[in-house]
């Protein structure tokens, strides 16, 4: 029998993969994708909870999360394009002026 815990563990695995990806990759776009992966993991746990608790709020929240993800993707990719245009790279290790 598949319980909520199964889904949550899967969600945790995917989320952790996303975290590790953010920490080890240097390509800004891939990091971005890892963030999407984390969002998906969270969505999964929302839906799982909603299903097992007989609630609709989880599903609705996923809906909103997706909107946010869409907005974020649009702005984030625009930023990446802008940065690339200026620095000819999307390697975030080349962009390290965030220390002042």
């Amino acid at each position, binding site marked *: 029998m598949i319980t909520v815990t199964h889904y949550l563990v899967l969600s945790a695995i995917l989320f952790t993969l996303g975290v*590790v990806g953010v920490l080890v990759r240097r390509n800004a776009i891939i990091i971005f994708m890892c963030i999407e992966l984390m969002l*998906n993991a969270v969505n999964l746990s929302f839906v799982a909870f909603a299903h097992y608790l007989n609630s609709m709020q989880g599903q609705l929240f996923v809906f909103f999360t997706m909107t946010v993800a869409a907005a974020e993707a649009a702005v984030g990719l625009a930023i990446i394009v802008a940065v690339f245009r200026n620095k000819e790279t999307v390697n975030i290790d080349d962009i390290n002026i965030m220390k002042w």
Partner: protein
Amino acid sequence: MEAYLFYIMAAVAVASGVYLIFEKNPVFSALYLIQTMVSIAVLYILLEAQFIAAVQIIVYAGAIMVLFLFVIMLLNLDIKEEAKNALPFQRIPAVLMGIAFFTVICIVLRSKLLQGKHGEYTTAYINSIGNTKLIGNLLFTDYLLPFEITSILLFVAAIGAIMLAKRKL
């Protein structure tokens, strides 16, 4: 049957996730991500959230990931991994932290902390009205304000993206 499907899809999602983070070519990474999303969409159906599953495929896998691929190709990035690695020493701690993170979450999951109240939307009830219709109802009644705010958010994001990406204004 349900269990088999879950395990298969879970395995596909995790495997794609692992490939995603270790793949050198961003195009392939994006494709692996799409694969993860599709498998998650299947899981949504298993959880009887058909509308979300559909949106997942249409919006995420369809729209957002296409945008990603579009940008990757627009920038015409090199296939090989980025030359500069300023933090080589972070790799192992990062993986360790990932494991620690996972362990901690698992401990939380095993505890009885995550106890929710059961609502009235049982599977039978949802199925009697229809998942999509129910969501639609809720969105335009109880969640109208957040819904409208979402539209503003998207509008702002669109403007922001244009502002950022445009060469000169």
